[in-house]
Each structure stands twice: as C-alpha cells, then as structure tokens.
C-alpha cells in the first residue's frame, strides 16, 4: 500500500517526527539515489544517507509544501554531488573493503532495480552530454523539478536552463540517430 506524499499529508505528519522523517525518506530517497547515480557520484548510497542526515532535522522548518521540500532536498543533494565531484577531481578515492561496515545483507533489490533501469546503458547515454546539460536533464526528469527550481539549484537563469536542456535533447537525438544508423 502506498500513499502519495501530498501537502495535506505533510501537514498531518507535522509534530510526529519519526513518521514524518520516514515518509520523507521513503518519498525522496529513491529519487535522490537516482539523481546521484545519474550524476556519477562515486558512492551514491552513502551520499544519499548524508543528504538525508542533513535534510531530515530541518524538515519541520521547510515551507512551501511538497514542492518546497523537493527543492530543498535536491539542493542539498546537488551540493553534496558537487562536493563529491570536487573530491574525485582532486584524487580518486579508493576505500578498502571493510566487512564490518558493510551493512548490506542482500543486493537483490538493487540488482533488480539496476536490471530494470539498465544503468550502464543510461550512463553511456548521459556520457554523450556535457556536465551542465546532464545536470539539467537529471534535475528535470529524475528529480522532477521545474525550470524555475532547476535554475535556482544550479544558480542559473531560467533562459540558460532552457537553453541547456534544448541542447541536451539535440545532442541525445543526434546520438540516438547515429546509433540507429549504425546498429542495424
């Protein structure tokens, strides 16, 4: 049974902290994980947890309903993504595997999701795009933000965002046309 996280539901959960946190996490964690994965973050799950550790204590103070909450969540995710990219650009970080810290008991859900998403193919698709074009598309399609919200998060004007998404689509179309022409 699923229930849509609406403005009314948010108001109803106000004051019940544990339930509110769980609802926000369930509603947005998958999207944040998808956004971070699409942006090529080295450890999307860990960064997702960091994002919600920062977001959840301030959920009560967010105004603007679900839309405002969405903007806030993805602005934090965007900032963490930028941090991760800077970290990667400085020095690729390699973590040694520590079994004690690996809390994953089953990878079946992820494997199913990955098979369904076919991330390798999508990532190859996204690799066609420039970084800011990729950012615009993930923010608009994966995060489901409007042009205004994406422009606010990226710190650009609405016209610049529209221009970026137009060029991104053109680049994707050319790529898909070339692929169709070559593949058969």
């Amino acid at each position, binding site marked *: 049974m699923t229930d849509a996280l609406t403005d009314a539901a948010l108001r109803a959960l106000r004051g019940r902290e544990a339930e509110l946190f769980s609802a926000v996490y369930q509603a947005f964690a998958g999207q944040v994980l*998808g956004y971070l994965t699409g942006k090529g973050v080295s450890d999307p799950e860990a960064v997702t947890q960091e994002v919600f550790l920062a977001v959840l204590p301030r959920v009560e103070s967010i105004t603007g309903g679900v839309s405002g909450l969405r903007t806030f969540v993805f602005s934090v995710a965007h900032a963490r993504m930028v941090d991760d990219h800077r970290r990667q650009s400085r020095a690729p970080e390699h973590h040694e595997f520590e079994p004690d810290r690996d809390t994953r008991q089953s990878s079946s859900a992820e494997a199913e999701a990955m098979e369904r998403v076919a991330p390798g193919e999508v990532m190859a698709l996204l690799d066609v795009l420039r970084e800011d074009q990729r950012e615009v598309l993930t923010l608009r399609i994966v995060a489901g933000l409007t042009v205004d919200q994406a422009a606010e998060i990226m710190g650009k004007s609405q016209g610049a965002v529209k221009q970026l998404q137009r060029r991104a689509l053109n680049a994707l179309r050319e790529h898909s046309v070339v692929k169709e022409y070559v593949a058969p």
Partner: protein
Amino acid sequence: MMRWDCKDIDRDAIIRELMLEAGLTDAPALADSLKALESFASMPAPVPGPALAAMLAGTAAAAGPVAEVGTAPGIGIATGDLTDERPVDELGKRRQLRKHRPAVIGAAVLTAMGLGIGGVAASSSGFSKGTPDFMQSLISGWAPGWTTAPPSLVPPAPAGDSPKVTTHPAPVDLPAPAAEQEPVIAAAPEAAVPPAVEPSPDAVAPSAVEPIEAKDSPSQGAGRPEVPKTVHTEPKADSPGVFKQTADTLPKWGSKDFRDGLPQVLQDGKADLAGKSQGASLRWLFGLAR
C-alpha cells in the same frame, strides 16, 4: 504497511514538455532515451545507515535494516537520540583525524623532547653529588699564579694591625737569619781555625786592629774579647757576600718554585709566628714576592 510515494509530478508530462520546447516532437528514439533516464527516479530507497536509522525510527532496528524502512513509521519509537554527531563514513573519520593531526604531532614531539632531555639530565650525574675525590686531590696542591701579589690570600692573620707595631725590627732581622745560618754552615771552619792560628803568627794585625777596638770598648780585655770580636766582625765584613749568596739563592727560585713553595713558606711562616714577629715574616714574604 504504508509506503509513501511522491506522485505529485508526472514525469511523462515533463518529458513531453521538454521535447516540445526543443522542437523534437517526432523523435521516438529520443523519447525512449529520456524514459530510460526517467527510470532513475524509481530506484528503491537505500538501506539507512546506523545514524540515519536512529534518526528515522530509533528502536525499529529489531526487524532488520531492510524491513526497517517499511515498518519504521508504524512501530518506530523516538528515543531522542537524534543529535548523534558520530562520523558515519570513513571520510568523516579521516577528516576528524586530520583536524587534530597537528596537535597530536606537536604533543608527541614535545613529549619526546622532554623525555630525552630528562633522560640525559638523569643519566649524567655531573658534579651534583659534590666534587669527586680525584678532583679534590688535584686541586689541593695547586695555587693560581696570580696569587703572588694579592694580600687577601696572605693568611688571615691580623695583617692590618701588625705593620704598625713591627715595622722597625724587620730590617734588622732580615740579615740576621742569613748571618746566623751562614757562619754555622760555611764560615764556621774559618772562624774555628783562625782564632787558633792567627794570634801567634800575625801579631801585627791584632795590634793594628787594637786601637779601634780599644777605643770602642776600653773596658773589655785585649786578648779574649778579640777572638769573638773578629769572629763577630768577619760576618760583618762578609755580610755583602752573605747578601750575595741570599741574592743568588733568590733568583734560583724560579717563579714555579716560588709558587710551589709559597704554601710551604706560608705554613712555615704560620709555624714561626709564635717565635718571630709577624711583621718580620710578612715583610720577608713581600720582599720575596717582589
């Protein structure tokens, strides 16, 4: 079980809007690509880590991490442990370590330096327990060369008062010891032999001397007193020679001998203080020193 989802947006509508804005309405391949991108949004929520799980539900961890996500809203009990600031990831731990690294290194260096200095000070006893015996024995017989003049090192005798009293006898006593010592050793044979021989062969000589002696001492006898007189006067006639001898003996005392002998002389002077006047010994010492 209640699962929350965010259905307030229609991503298909967003994709249509995007393609419409770009003027690409007849591009099915592009639409498929965008829908593949859309599938990123339907990824399952990751399993919360320890800190996040505590923040989400508190004690709901009994059902296991996977089930916790779904059951948390129902059975979650807030424990109030929401302000746990432990670093959750390896990066956080490293950052915390890096933050305190200078302080840790500084403390370690200071501790090591302190231990080293303390060890050196403890191992080398130095003269802390007093001057060693061999050093005492080395120093005991040594007197610095510049102690010849300073009167402060001259024995603590009442030197300040003594010169007033004993200045006069000093020049008289100075030749006396030399004159007394010399006849005993060197002039004694001469004095012993001549009195026995001289009176008989040299009858003129005493007679030549006699008038003077008679003038000086009319009351004394002529024969007997002469011998002691001559004996007594010979040293006077030889006194320059005696002085020469003492003058010769002085240079023989090199400065080194003098330094070595000074303590001995000082000791002798102390010992003779009872018999001789202090002024005499002091004057003699100063004479030697010059």
